[in-house]
């Protein structure tokens, strides 16, 4: 347990050092080393006021408070439209090894799926797929693009 919490401290330190050099306006840097995208570029809408995607910090799959707000809206929308099914597409940025990123994309998509389920959406209406770093939303190689690419996108399948 001590070992684990030590690791978290180390991680936070590493993240802080890492981000110190390359922070941008949109990629918010906090003392916890979170760098999830908080802007609106690249975002599409499932319906009025229901954004289609949530963003993650580097190497993380925990949902940010912005992400849970978005997923809450998606859950409400999906419950109001009970015949709709969705696939959650998990993605990673290009700054990681291909195979690890495939796993990371799956973990991010699953985090979003579990949140929708816990908010009352039936599990059998949701599929997940990971694309790893294969399908960037923003093809640039910079911190902003990477933050926009660390995402899970909810796509209607019918």
């Amino acid at each position, binding site marked *: 347990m001590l070992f684990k919490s030590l690791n978290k401290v180390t991680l936070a330190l590493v993240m802080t050092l890492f981000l110190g050099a*390359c922070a941008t306006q949109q990629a918010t840097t906090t003392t916890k080393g979170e760098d999830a995208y908080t802007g609106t570029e690249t975002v599409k809408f499932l319906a009025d006021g229901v954004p289609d995607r949530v963003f993650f910090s580097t190497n993380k799959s925990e949902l940010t408070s912005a992400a849970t707000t978005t997923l809450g809206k998606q859950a409400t929308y999906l419950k109001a439209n009970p015949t709709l099914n969705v696939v959650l597409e998990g993605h990673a940025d290009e700054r990681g*090894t291909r*195979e690890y990123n495939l*796993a990371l994309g*799956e973990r991010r998509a699953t985090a979003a799926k579990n949140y929708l389920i816990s908010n009352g959406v039936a599990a059998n209406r949701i599929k997940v797929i990971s694309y790893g770093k294969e399908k960037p939303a*923003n093809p*640039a190689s910079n911190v902003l693009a990477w933050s926009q690419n660390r995402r899970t996108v909810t796509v209607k399948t019918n």
Partner: protein
Amino acid sequence: MKYKIFTILALFFILTAKSFALVSVDITRGNLDPLPTAISDFYLDSKLGDNIKKLQLESKIPELIQNNLSRSGLFFALEKKSFIQRPEPAHNKPRFEDWAFIKTQVLVTGKISLEKEGRLRVEFKLWDVVSATELSALAFYTTPDNWRRVSHMISDKIYERLTGEKGYFDSRIIFVSETGPKVDRKKRLAIMDQDGYGVKYLTLGNELVLTPRFSPASQHVTYMSYFKNLPRVYLLNIETGIQDLVGDFPGMTFAPRFSPDGKKIIMSFAQEGNSDIYTMDIKTRVVEKLTDNPSIDTSPSYSPDGSYIAFNSDRSGFQQIYTMKSDGTNVKRISFGEGLYGTPVWSPRGDLIAFTKLYRNKFYIGVMRSDGSGERLLTENYYQEAPSWAPNGRVLVFYRETPSDSSGRGGGAKLWSIDLTGYNERLIQTPTDASDPSWSGLLSGK
């Protein structure tokens, strides 16, 4: 002569055994004083017909041998126009003083003659110019269109005789060919000779394909495909073109590799946010789960004797390299340097594990011993990953990406090779962008 070769081997050994401090990259691209080598044109038996003569194999075969040896970084090929003796007398009885005069230490000569049924006999001799002796002589029989294979096999024989190591020229590389814009990249499986010649495409590009790997024992390849938008591991016979789904998993399977005997595929299966490592026996289709941890476990690679597996896991909080016995017991973390570690790949010699490292926003290809000691970083760049070993464990191939600009253009991926010493980094020319290389074993076997 003997002394010179000994020097090269001694340098090889010293550089290999040298252990650098972490993150002090040895990227000196200096030259190891390569061995001066003269590769004479071969001579054509006068009985050969015009149809053979017009192929100009008497110069093409030596040229290919010369390219192979030069690319290895261990040989320096002297210019043909400095040669004094003609190919035929040189092959039958070299005038060593003529060759010593141009300061070569090694001479390669050859003869091409006709066998029955249109087959060729390609004979080569390797000479030690300094001690004026023949080191080896061998003949290969082949059809004229197979001259590249024969040239690679001769290159291997020369490399073996002069370095004491197995060669790696008679081998192929499978990779992913990439075209189109980054947001809609078209990826196809492709295969070529190790020198980049003869690229053939194995898939049409209708679906995304990733991470092909050769079977060490057969003409099979395992890879990941998004066929029907279901990301799964496949097995492909590259001679028949027949492909099979590997296993019946209710989710994504990825990161496949063969066991050293070619009988099993080891891979990751992702479910409910958790990736674990599984094997499937290709014949019996029996599936075994090897890791059971809520973290990401991926990029498995067997030791060459099949008794251990190296893999990538973030169970410590972030990406590190672990080893375990092939039954999944005795899990040990072996990477403890600063930064993140991925894609462990066990050397065919068994002594080293190659890996990708991310440290302070740079990517490195490196090697460490299988207990994690002796970490050495071979090359540093903006982005590079996925090393794969040449069959003799002396050279690594990997892919390197260049960044795109703010409009998303200008980025790309290419294949590179580098010696285990950290020297002799070389681009491998491919017709398109290329990634995920996997080096085959020697085609002619051991």
